[in-house]
C-alpha cells in the first residue's frame, strides 16, 4: 500500500513537472493556435502535449487525396501495432466550409475512432501558420477546391518533429518504425 502511494506520488510529481517544464525551442507547440475539434471543443494546439501524435492536413470535400491521407494515418497506426498512446490529428485547409458539423460528419463517415482521432479547424490566418509550421503547401482555387501537398508528421510528446513522410496511399516502413519507437511499441 505504501509502495503504491509512493508510486502514485512519483507519477503525480513527474506529470506536474512535465506540464510545468518549458517547451523545447524546436517544439511545434510554440505556435499558439486554437483548434476546434469535431465535437466543438476548442483547445490550444499545445494542449496536445504529452502524447506522440501523427499530424496531417486535409479538407472534407476533397474526394481524391484526402481520404487517402486519412486511410494512410489509420494504416500507419495499425502497422505500428495500434499503440494506445498515439494520437492522430488532421487539421482542415478549408475553415470556410469545414465547420464543426462537417468535421463530425466526416469522422462518422470514415469511422474514425475518437479515442485516438481528432479532426480540427482553426481560423484562416492560423491555418496558414500551421501549414507553414508543418511544411505543407496549399492554395485555394477559384472553384473552392484546394491544391495541397500531402505529408504525415510524427511529433514526440513535446511536439518535436521526429519523422515525416510524403508517401500516401500505402504505409512508409521507415515512418512506421519511427512511430513504434516513439510510442514504445
Amino acid at each position: 500500500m505504501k509502495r503504491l502511494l509512493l508510486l502514485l506520488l512519483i507519477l503525480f510529481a513527474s506529470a506536474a513537472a512535465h506540464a510545468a517544464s518549458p517547451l523545447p525551442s524546436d517544439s511545434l507547440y510554440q505556435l499558439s493556435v486554437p483548434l476546434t475539434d469535431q465535437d466543438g471543443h476548442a483547445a490550444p494546439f499545445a494542449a496536445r502535449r504529452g502524447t506522440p501524435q501523427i499530424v496531417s492536413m486535409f479538407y472534407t470535400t476533397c474526394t481524391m487525396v484526402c481520404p487517402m491521407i486519412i486511410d494512410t494515418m489509420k494504416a500507419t497506426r495499425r502497422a505500428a501495432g495500434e499503440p494506445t498512446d498515439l494520437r492522430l490529428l488532421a487539421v482542415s485547409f478549408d475553415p470556410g466550409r469545414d465547420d464543426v458539423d462537417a468535421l463530425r460528419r466526416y469522422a462518422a463517415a470514415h469511422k474514425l475512432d475518437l479515442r485516438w482521432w481528432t479532426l480540427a479547424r482553426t481560423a484562416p490566418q492560423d491555418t496558414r501558420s500551421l501549414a507553414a509550421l508543418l511544411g505543407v503547401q496549399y492554395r485555394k482555387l477559384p472553384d473552392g477546391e484546394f491544391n495541397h501537398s500531402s505529408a504525415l508528421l510524427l511529433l514526440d510528446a513535446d511536439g518535436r518533429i521526429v519523422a515525416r513522410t510524403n508517401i500516401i496511399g500505402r504505409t512508409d516502413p521507415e515512418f512506421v518504425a519511427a512511430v513504434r519507437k516513439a510510442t514504445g511499441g
Partner: protein
Amino acid sequence: MRRRSSFARSALVLLGLMLAVPTLAADYKVLPGGRFESVLPADGKTAPAVLKPFRLRAEPVTNAEFLAFVKAHPEWRRDRVPSVFADGRYLSQWAAPDQLGPGALPRQPVTQVSWFAAQAFCESEHARLPTWYEWEYAAAADATRADARSDPAWRERVLSWYSRPSRQALPPVGGKPDIHGVRDLNGLVWEWVEDFNAMMTSADSREQDGADKLKFCGAGAITMEQKENYATLMRVAMLSSLKATDTTANLGFRCARPE
C-alpha cells in the same frame, strides 16, 4: 495663463509620444485592386486573379522599425526566439539582440527575418503580410502606370537589379514612389508574402498531370503562364523554395491591410 502652459505641456507630451512610436506612423497606401493577370493563373490555366482594394505599406520595414518591435516583443529577440520560428541566422547582422550596430543601419530594410517573425511584426501594426497576388499586382506598377509589365524597360529594370552583386551593402529605403505612392518593391530586397507556401510550381510542369496527382489534391497544380515574364517567375521560384523559418541577407518584408 496656467491653462495655456498645461496645454503646451500636453502638446509636447503628444509630440514626444508620436516621435517615440514610429511604427504607429507607418504609411500605408490604398491600391484599388481588380482583375489582374498574374504569372500564376488562379485556376492553374488562364483565370485572372481578382483583388479586393487593399492598403500596402509604402516602404519595406526598416531595421529601426524592427528593433522597436523586438524591444516591445522581446520573445522575438534573436537570443529568445524558438527555433521553430526562425533559423540560426535570424537578425545575425545586428550588433546585439537589442542593438543595430554598423552592420545594420536604421533606415536600411530589415533582412534576416523569418516568415513567422515578419507575420508577428505585421500583426503588431494591425496588418498582415501581403498575398502573392497583392504583391505581384503592386510591383507591376511604375511611376506612371499601374501595370507597366508589357514595357521591356520595366522588365529590364527588375532584371538588372537581380544581377547586382548581393554582397554590397543594402541601400536605405526611400526609392522613387510609383503611381500608388509605394516605394522599393523592385530593386531593394526580396519580400516575404503571406502565401509563400502556396505557389507550388514544379521545375517541370509536365509532372503535374500524371505522377503529381497524388501529391497535389484538387485540380492540376499551378502552371506558370507568361513564360516570357521570367523576372517575376524568378521571384516565384525563390519564394517557393523557402521554408517559413528561413532568413537571408536579401529577404525583407512589408505589410498589408484590407482597405
